[in-house]
């Protein structure tokens, strides 16, 4: 029977199927970040030790400072304890760990692909919803909760019910100034923030083939914002080229053998998906969100909706509530929204290509008066590579802060946050109420768009700036 990419990876990992529809799956790699303390505590309470420590890896990202590399500089004892706990728990279990002083430290979803730890055909889990990122390398990767983290540590397995499958075909070619971030924001706006709930999503088509592996990670990363369990892309020559030579990738004869196996990891031509979605990326303009759900995204050329036009009184009320929170007026042009802060980084857009794309816009320009703009590279290596290219100078000369790797202001757990009422242009993944700090107002967009907002002080169509070059 014809199989999807998802089916092929799933089937390879089945230990046993139960009559009630649950499957016990084997986990190839378990990634840990500094939110894992509750799971290790659950194991301690049961007197159970991690069973296969060599299949786990950890690096701290949520609680680490981005203005220093010294854990002792974290003033809040609870935050410091979270970062310390990961170091102690991984050391006690014999789990590979990149600490804050390790040049390879960074956001787990940036570090693992960069090190060649995320590879085609693998089943990967992590106690973080953006684990879907790793699907860009042709793996099946998804986020789990603390109880499941404890379960995987104790058994190297996980009970799952097979999700449905969705096939998203992306046709056409992106226009200049339009990026992977715009594709995924446009897709979520189209299918809704619950549009992929219960599905494993495979992305395919000419527009995916044309994306870099880093861009593919951005698309898979935000699959969870459409509710999707996992986002994945069949590995191709670009994937193999990305992985070759990375520290944890196979070498020599093992590499050749691995690539030969990886070539079979694609959906059969006649494979059937539970849902098909088709989108032309040539029709996409740079996107920004205006509300508190990633589905509330519009082309930068657009205007906010009118609550009066909402389909139901409840929807009208919800839209008005959102506009009140965001401090916006019905029908206003997106380009008239002024911003206070810019954040370029995160597991969504904290990779080298993202920083290059932002730097291209920033080069020779200055951050607008009254705007505080940050770049937080996704990992130590991203930072080092960017510095080797002189990007740090481009950003610093323009007035940006050039900081150390971590999750930072994506969710503000380390204390990097917006003040109440402040408005950000942010390359992150969630514009939820209070996400970047209580009362924060977040507009999601691509790195190039965030850079454009930084230099003009308002949401700006980056194509206008690129065109003037």
């Amino acid at each position, binding site marked *: 029977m014809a199989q999807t990419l998802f089916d092929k990876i799933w089937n*390879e*990992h089945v*230990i*046993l199927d139960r009559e*009630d529809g*649950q499957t*016990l799956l*084997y986990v*190839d790699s378990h990634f840990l970040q500094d*939110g894992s*303390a*509750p799971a290790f*505590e659950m194991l301690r309470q*049961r007197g*159970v030790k991690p069973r296969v420590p060599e299949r786990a890896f950890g690096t701290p990202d949520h*609680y680490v400072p981005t203005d220093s590399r010294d854990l002792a500089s974290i003033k*809040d004892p*609870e935050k410091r*304890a*979270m970062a310390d706990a990961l170091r102690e728990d991984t050391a006690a279990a014999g789990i590979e760990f990149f600490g804050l002083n390790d040049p390879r430290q960074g956001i787990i979803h940036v570090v693992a692909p960069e090190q060649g730890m995320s590879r085609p*055909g*693998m089943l990967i889990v992590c106690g*973080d*919803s953006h684990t879907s990122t790793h699907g860009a390398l042709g793996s099946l990767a998804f*986020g*789990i*909760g*603390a*109880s*499941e983290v*404890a*379960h995987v540590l*104790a*058994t*190297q*397995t996980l*009970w799952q*019910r097979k*999700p449905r499958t969705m096939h998203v075909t992306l046709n056409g070619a992106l226009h200049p100034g339009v990026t992977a971030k715009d594709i995924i924001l446009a897709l979520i706006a189209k299918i*809704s*923030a*619950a549009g992929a*709930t*219960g599905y494993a999503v495979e992305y395919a088509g000419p527009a995916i083939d044309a994306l870099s592996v880093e861009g593919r990670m951005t698309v898979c990363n935000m699959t*969870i914002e459409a*509710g999707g*369990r996992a986002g994945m892309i069949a590995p191709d020559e670009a994937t193999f080229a990305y992985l070759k030579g990375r520290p944890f990738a196979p070498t020599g004869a093992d590499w050749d053998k691995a690539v030969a196996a990886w070539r079979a990891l694609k959906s059969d031509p006649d494979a059937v998906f539970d849902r098909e979605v088709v989108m032309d990326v040539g029709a996409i303009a740079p996107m920004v969100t205006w509300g*508190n*759900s990633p589905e509330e995204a519009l082309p930068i050329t657009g205007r906010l909706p009118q609550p009066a036009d909402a389909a139901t009184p409840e929807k009208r009320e*919800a839209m008005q*509530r959102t506009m009140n929170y965001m401090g916006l007026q019905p029908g206003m042009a997106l380009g008239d929204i002024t911003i206070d802060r810019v954040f370029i980084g995160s597991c969504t857009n904290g990779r080298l290509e993202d920083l290059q794309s932002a730097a291209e816009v920033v080069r020779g320009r200055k951050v607008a008066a009254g705007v505080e703009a940050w770049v937080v590279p996704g990992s130590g290596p991203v930072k080092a590579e960017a510095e080797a290219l002189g990007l740090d100078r481009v950003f610093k000369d323009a007035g940006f802060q050039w900081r150390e790797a971590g999750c930072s202001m994506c*969710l*503000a*757990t380390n204390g990097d946050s917006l003040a109440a009422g402040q408005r950000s242009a942010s390359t992150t993944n*969630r514009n*939820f*109420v*209070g*996400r970047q700090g*209580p009362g924060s107002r977040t507009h999601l967009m691509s790195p190039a768009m965030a850079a454009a907002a930084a230099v003009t002080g308002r949401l700006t169509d980056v194509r206008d700036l690129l065109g003037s070059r």
Partner: protein
Amino acid sequence: MEPFTKLTANALPVARPNVDTDQLLPARYLQKPRSAPFGDFLFRDLRFNADGSEKPDFVLNKPFYRDAKIVVAEENFACGSSREHAVWALYDYGVRAVIAPSLGDIFSSNAAKNGLLTIILPAPVVAGMIEALQAEPDLEVAVDLEAQTVSLPNGPAHLFEIDPYRKRLLLEGLDELGFTLTQLPAIEAFEKTYAG
């Protein structure tokens, strides 16, 4: 884990879609240990002002709803982050069942492991329940897991689907990890032949 069988209780209508887990449990509480009073952090920023005083207009601060053990919410409830703390916040507050037209996948999975029942019902049914609860805040909602039904007083019993495995976890208060550990021979056998 406490088993869940039947429950008849006050219910909280959450008449907004896409209530994410950041709203259920703001990220700044993720650094608290499980022993912390997570019920106090539930809906923290919707429920309380910065100075800790209650926001009187928020639904959970109103009579009857305050005692809710069931949440009835609109589309895509508990979407977003994988934080199990969102389940702990609801559970510690006293909530034992959540009813919505759709729910975050990871949240539902986390809920089943903590004795919190999640129920999917068609959007019009949920909308009707929310309306009824808004009109009569003291209405008690009845949930029967064995029979897989939800009903309002004098109303029809709405059947719901539930994964049989999750149903068993909840009905028996099963310890999933304890069960898996009894399957170690199967796991070891798999590992012997597994090439990945």
